[in-house]
């Protein structure tokens, strides 16, 4: 465990998977518990649920907003330069400029190209970042408002916070391999890919493995829900020479602990040992 204790050994570990429900949060939460001084950061802002296990206290909340255009109709001459500029098609001109907030990528370009200076930017709240404490583990959670389209600005804010942290950070990533995941893994030193023992699981492992390879991140795989039967994800790892860090058994005890909102490494010595073994296997990559 000693390798994680010192500040100069700060490691950012991203936990991700090609699909939801493989056990990203299970792995992230338990690893954050067994690594002394570790910080848990939940970047799965559409469905953050690490906080349900940690139940953090002493919460500090930061509201997150984006800047979207607001049109001064008295100044607007209808030249439509802003509409033509917007490559996301968030603006239309039909006698007046219409703004489609959920399409806007808040680039601010329309305010620059408007020759009449008729466009200003106004704040639109999209969610929050909450920081708290759970038995000495620092918990950072991002929450995207229901109905808001992109959580990337919230993840960017969490990433800023991660850079300021002095200890090892476990980053619980969103599922999939799209923008929100890329944003979450960029700062990481090492990636843990969590995979299920199914053909579907191995397909999604392939997608996310390609992603971390593209970002040149060292990685290893945790095979979750191993039931002793054939495991296409394990076969994928062997075929591609990817390190298997651990195989977590398909275990009703673990399922019960998780289902009750408890943290296995805190309530079960068996699982504390399993996750400490996993922590020891993560290479020191600084």
């Amino acid at each position, binding site marked *: 465990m000693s390798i994680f204790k010192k500040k100069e050994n700060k490691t950012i570990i991203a936990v991700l998977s090609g699909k939801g429900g493989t056990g990203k949060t299970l792995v992230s939460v338990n690893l954050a518990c067994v690594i002394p001084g570790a910080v848990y950061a939940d970047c799965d802002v559409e469905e953050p649920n690490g906080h349900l296990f940690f139940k953090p206290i002493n919460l500090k909340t930061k509201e997150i907003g984006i800047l979207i255009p607001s049109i001064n109709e008295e100044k607007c001459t209808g030249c439509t330069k802003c509409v033509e500029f917007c490559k996301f098609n968030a603006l239309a001109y039909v006698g007046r400029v*219409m703004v489609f907030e959920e399409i806007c990528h808040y680039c601010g370009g329309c305010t620059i190209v408007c020759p009449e200076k008729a466009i200003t930017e106004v704040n639109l709240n999209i969610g929050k970042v909450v920081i708290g404490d759970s038995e000495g583990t620092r918990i950072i959670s991002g929450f995207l408002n229901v109905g808001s*389209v992109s959580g990337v600005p919230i993840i960017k804010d969490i990433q800023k916070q991660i850079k300021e942290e002095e200890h090892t950070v476990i980053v619980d990533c969103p599922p999939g391999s799209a923008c929100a995941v890329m944003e979450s893994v960029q700062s990481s030193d090492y990636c843990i890919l969590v995979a299920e023992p199914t053909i579907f699981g191995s397909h999604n492992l392939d997608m996310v493995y390609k992603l971390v390879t593209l970002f040149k991140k060292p990685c290893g795989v945790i095979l979750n829900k191993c039931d002793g039967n054939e495991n296409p994800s394990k076969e994928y790892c062997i075929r591609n020479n990817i390190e298997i860090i651990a195989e977590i058994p398909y275990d009703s005890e673990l399922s019960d602990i998780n289902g009750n909102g408890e943290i296995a490494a805190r309530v079960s010595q068996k699982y504390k040992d399993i996750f400490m073994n996993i922590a020891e296997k993560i290479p020191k990559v600084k």
Partner: protein
Amino acid sequence: MKIAIPVDEKNENSRICVSYGRAPYYMIFDSDSAKVEFVQNTAADSAGGAGIKAAQLLVNHKVNILITERCGQNAADVLIAGNIKIYRATKALVMDNLKAFLQGELEELSDIHPGYHGHKN
């Protein structure tokens, strides 16, 4: 009066295109001159907001009527602001839909879907 219909191909025998915002062309029929023109849909390959951009195109062409199988909310907002009425297509071929409309057989499209946008991330 100008009537626009999304089409798969640039000719009068074309089928109606099932996608309003990403149709490759619109057939625009001008009832005053009884002339047909085909307009390329510059919104077809947009990463997002195709319906909005396509609606802008129809507004710019001073279209009065759109005949389509379906239409998303954002596009409908622009079309309605531009005083374009939306009618539901009921036939497979573009010309059959136009005839049906001119004979008063088509109804206004009332069920605007919430759109398929939001997948850009």
